[in-house]
């Protein structure tokens, strides 16, 4: 009897050791990845990288950095009104049946592999509409990829606005729009912003849908919406590592490093947002 209990305890311990080692293993992989990117990245970063453009397989990354910023910024501009607007409509105005349809379409968007989005825009805009590789085509691709993340975060955030708060506002005689702007919107803002930042993180790191929409350029991007290809950081990582030149490898590592930093920052801000939101929710209840 005693031996069986001891055996069970031993088995339990063994399994937990396995579980804990899987966590340690995962963290080690992460460490290998971070170590790899940071060690090689830091060694490859030179100040000129930020001020010179790519020349063939050497030079700097200024065009790619500005290009990534431009593409993502325009994508945010495109996705915010659509994603958040749709979520507001679904949570505040929509009849039940249509609510389900919109949510379903967002679920579908979640399932679309990013390369399919890129291919769709390539055929439709770059070729058929004759826009060529361009800022708008690239940003649209990113916006479509960000859309489900932004929408779902906003949907959750607006759904979580406490009913009693809204009802109290209405009972005090506030018009629906005032209630929305003064009560629901501030309440849902942090959650929505967090979702947006997650989307931004994903957009910054996308490659496949940009190859055939934004193209690539060695020069500083212009603000021309069409007919002017745009460079971006992920392209450098994916193509320059395949070149047999040391300078191009350096640029690939530097670009990977900058991407990681960008992801760190958006992740950190997003997490801080979640914490802030959670603390506010707690103080309300």
């Amino acid at each position, binding site marked *: 009897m005693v031996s069986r209990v001891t055996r069970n305890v031993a088995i339990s311990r063994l399994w937990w050791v396995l579980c804990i080692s899987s966590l340690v293993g995962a963290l080690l992989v992460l460490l290998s990845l971070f170590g790899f990117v940071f060690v090689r990245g830091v060694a490859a970063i030179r100040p000129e990288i930020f001020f010179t453009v790519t*020349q*063939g*397989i050497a030079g700097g990354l200024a065009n790619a950095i*500005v290009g990534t*910023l*431009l593409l993502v*910024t325009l994508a945010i501009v495109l996705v915010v009104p659509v994603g958040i607007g749709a979520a507001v409509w679904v949570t505040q105005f929509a009849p039940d049946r249509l609510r389900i349809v919109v949510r379903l379409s967002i679920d579908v968007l979640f399932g679309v592999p990013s390369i399919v989005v890129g291919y769709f825009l390539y055929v439709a805009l*770059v*070729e058929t509409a*004759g826009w*060529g*590789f361009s800022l708008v085509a690239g940003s649209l691709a990113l916006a479509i990829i960000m859309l489900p993340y932004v929408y779902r975060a906003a949907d959750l955030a607006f759904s979580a606005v406490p009913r009693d708060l809204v009802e109290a506002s209405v009972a005090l005689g506030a018009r629906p729009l005032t209630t929305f702007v003064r009560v629901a919107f501030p309440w849902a803002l942090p959650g929505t*912003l967090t979702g947006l930042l997650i989307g931004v993180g994903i957009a910054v790191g996308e490659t496949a849908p940009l190859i055939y929409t934004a*193209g*690539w*350029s*060695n*020069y*500083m*991007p*212009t*603000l*021309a919406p069409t007919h*002017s*290809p745009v460079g971006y950081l992920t392209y450098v990582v994916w*193509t320059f590592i*395949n*070149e*047999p*030149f040391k300078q191009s490898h350096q640029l690939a590592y530097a670009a990977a490093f900058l991407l990681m930093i960008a992801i760190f920052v958006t992740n950190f*801000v997003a997490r801080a947002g979640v914490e802030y939101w959670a603390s506010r929710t707690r103080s309300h209840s």
Partner: protein
Amino acid sequence: MRKFTAVALAAVFALGSLAAARAATPILETGSSLLYPLMNLWVASYQAKNHTVQITTQSTGSGTGISQAIAGVAQIGASDAYMGDPQMRGHRMLNIPLAISAQQINYNIPGLNNVHLHLSGPVLAGIYMGRIKYWNDPQIKALNRPYAGRLPHRTIIPIHRTDGSGDTFIFSQYLSFTTPMWSHGPGYGTSISWPSVSTAVGANGNPGMVQACKATPYSIAYIGVSFINETNKAGLGYGLLKNRAGRFVAPTASTIGSAAAAMYPKTPRDERISLVFAPGANSYPIINYEYAIVNPHQKNAETREALVKFLSWVLDHNGGQEMHFLNAVHFLPLPASIAKLSREQVAQIH
């Protein structure tokens, strides 16, 4: 947060508009990774004197070069292959030779990379069809008697291009012209249907081929001659190829020149011709024209002007055809007769 976003936005647009303010005519050159190193030398030198044009160069593969030039996305599609008749029927494009190039067959056999193995079309076809599986296969031994004992019993890993590629085009032409079984099977093209070989690996562009061959012991690859410095640095061996006269020759200026000289008189006005497996005792069998695929009809006047000016400079013996450009990548310049045909084609751009 909002303030930060505003500042970031302002900065981005300030930078963007800065760039827009000095906007010059953009020209996109994309395609052949074999031509890419030379294109970079040309563009850097040309841009130093011409500020009204911005030429972006991209190493994507000849297939991309051809298709993006057709789609009007790129102004110059760089290609090691001329366009086929079916393609020309759909889209009348100019195929303008800019230089003469060649291809080496590289391998990574630890211990044997300083040796130049003798290779023939049928043996290479056998390797890429999976019929010759090991480096010590009797057929390879038969061509390399002095090293027969040193050839290892190791599986050959044939590396091919995954992107549409002019190097695939000229390599598969060499196999097709020398090996009936290949010409009836995969045939030739910028992307062909590779036979099933269990160890075969795909790589992207000439740079990817160098990387893959270097990283993979016992592999074999076909790589453009403009990457000779890189293949040497990577410590890869290169083979001597059997030519039409039955001799085994290395890719040198003299053997490439000999093969090219045999083909100049046969070049038609539209310059679409294969230079592969040329006659001549001293001729290297895998050489080709490096083409600029250009749409003769350019809607935008500024683009047309900039394009014609750049191409004319490239074809000028005091411009892009100067030896120091071509020597750097082991290419040969066009002879006067072919440069003239090319200039006539440039004149057709309207």
